[in-house]
């Protein structure tokens, strides 16, 4: 997305549109897939109504934010295995800080929690740079540490937040067919990601992820770009944790654990290349909604919803293999 926006000269609209589609297959494929999945869902479960839509949006919101957190770092050429535990930390922070507060108080606490997320991201980025340990190991370890922090803040599930605050995601303000969770997702992701991707910063992140050596030799401060990517990832993780509080109503120290892996699944399915530099954030978000649809569909089909995890794992592997085949096929042709 970003590279197009920045490179594009005065639009020769059709050519530009075609080039855009060629470069961003996920932006066409993912919505098409989502629509197909929705049609399938309605067929197997004709009673699919506004309530089911709301549950879907609630399930998808934290996962979509986890996917965003992961996508930014992976686009910059790294990986962050601490996304899930960071979400837990934000979740228990929100649950314990907001429990007796007002709506405005909850909003102020949210700002603080986002700051904590940014700091965590900064710490990850600095550790990767200074310690010379590979990012997989650093984030695996910081994730382990954050798991301890979450347990330290809140030993067992509890706490809460003002109802008005929860309704920011859990309610339906405009119409029962437009869940607030969906609006929240679009607004929040837009607010964090658009300024980055529209600015030089986005270009730097993509350039660094695409070819670190080439970017460095072209004068890109690659260390800075990676650091920024980790900070943004931390903010997204914190948002995901706050979203968990909104959707579950409480804080729980292990609530975020599954989102490290599911978030990775979402970005892989959503067309972000794990070698960096390729993909955007829309694909992963739609993939997150798709992944959240799977357990619901399994229930509608009378299949054990726990197979959802199996399907998720299978999907990751198949998508990556298909991507590999496509690449080698393109290289040959």
């Amino acid at each position, binding site marked *: 997305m970003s590279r197009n926006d920045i490179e594009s000269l005065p639009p020769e609209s059709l050519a530009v549109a075609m080039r855009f589609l060629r470069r961003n297959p996920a932006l066409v494929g993912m919505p098409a897939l989502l629509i197909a999945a929705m049609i399938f869902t309605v067929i197997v479960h004709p009673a699919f109504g506004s309530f089911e839509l709301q549950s879907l949006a609630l399930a998808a919101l934290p996962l979509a934010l986890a996917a965003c957190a992961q996508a930014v770092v992976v686009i910059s050429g790294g990986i962050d295995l601490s996304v899930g535990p960071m979400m837990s930390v934000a979740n228990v922070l929100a649950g314990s800080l907001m429990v007796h507060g007002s709506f405005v108080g909850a909003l102020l606490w949210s700002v603080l929690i986002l700051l904590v997320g940014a700091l965590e991201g900064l710490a990850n980025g600095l550790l990767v740079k200074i310690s010379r340990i590979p990012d997989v*190991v650093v984030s695996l370890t910081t994730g*382990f540490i954050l798991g*301890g922090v979450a347990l*330290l803040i809140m030993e067992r599930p509890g706490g809460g937040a003002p109802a008005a605050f929860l309704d920011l995601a859990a309610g339906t303000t405009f119409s029962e067919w437009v869940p607030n969770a969906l609006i929240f997702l679009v607004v929040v992701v837009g607010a964090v990601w658009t300024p980055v991707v529209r600015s030089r910063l986005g270009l730097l992140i993509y350039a660094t992820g695409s070819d670190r050596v080439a970017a460095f030799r072209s004068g890109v401060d690659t260390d800075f770009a990676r650091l920024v990517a980790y900070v943004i990832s931390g903010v997204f993780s914190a948002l995901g944790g706050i979203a968990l509080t909104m959707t579950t109503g409480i804080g729980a120290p292990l609530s975020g654990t599954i989102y490290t892996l599911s978030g990775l699944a979402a970005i892989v399915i959503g067309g972000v290349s794990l070698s960096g530099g390729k993909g955007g954030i829309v694909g992963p978000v739609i993939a997150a909604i798709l992944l959240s649809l799977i357990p619901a569909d399994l229930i509608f089909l009378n299949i054990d919803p726990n*197979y*959802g995890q199996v399907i998720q794992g299978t999907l990751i*592997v198949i998508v990556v293999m298909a991507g590999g085949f496509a690449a080698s096929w393109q290289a040959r042709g």
Partner: protein
Amino acid sequence: MSVAHKSSRPSSAETILTYLRRNTIVALLLLLAVFIAGIETVRPGTVTPLWISNTLLFAAPLGIFAAGQTLVMLTGGIDLSVATVASGSAYLLATNASHGTPQAILLGLLLGLLVGLANGVGIALMRVQPLVMTLGTGLMTGGFMIVYSQQMLASQPRIPAFIQALGATKLFGAIPYDLFVWAPIAAFIIYALRRSGFGRLIYAVGDNRVACELAGVRVWRVLLSAYVLCGVLAALAGIILVGGTNASNLSLADSYLLPSVAAVIIGGTSIFGGRGGYSGSIIGALILTVLTSLLTLLDIGEPVKQILYGSIILAMAAAYARLTD
């Protein structure tokens, strides 16, 4: 390492650092000694022959995890499915104990073989990144185990006496039985990595895959064998682990994922492949086990323990990266 550095005079510090850089195993042993000294300081009189045999008993599962992880990481990969495989194999063993202990053990190891095979096929033949592949198979295995466990609610999981003895008791009250599993594996892997063609190929593939392919090495065979071995070893570690805890659940080995990677990294094997060996990982596993008991002695809450454990791992890995760079 840093401790050794401080205690010597600046003039000789450089000589010592150079020596440690060339003999990293000595640096690791020093670090191990420092932690053991730490335990002795916190509670004098703790370090006895009994304590040493207990430490070996607890270190064995981690050591076996690290064996598989070492093989895989030497090829430039990583296996993030080891914890799920271990929990799964232990659960399969416990729920099928009524069919006979050997069958139950074989079933558990079979799970490791299958997942390792899937990992190997994906990584070696389909060229999927190891991180994604093992993550995917880990998710799949975990999901299957959850479904399986819900069908198994009726039958009570039971750990066979043989497995309990293997994971929790000692010969003559001195030599842990699980050492009889770990030691041969360790000897075999150290020997194979140093002396056998397969071992040298593991290093070669990790060092430069393209060069290996050009030289006519069937790289896929090397990778496939490494991942299959890693899967089976993880399953074995899970079986010993469940013998020690005597209670089987699906998150049994979850806390072993980080240590399995950390023991190898601290032991000096590069995650990019081609450098390191299993003897370092063994000491890495011992260091982590001693660290755990040190933290337990400190009598602090579980969360603080987790935070300290992670931070110390980061510090050690960073120091090691500095030392060998």
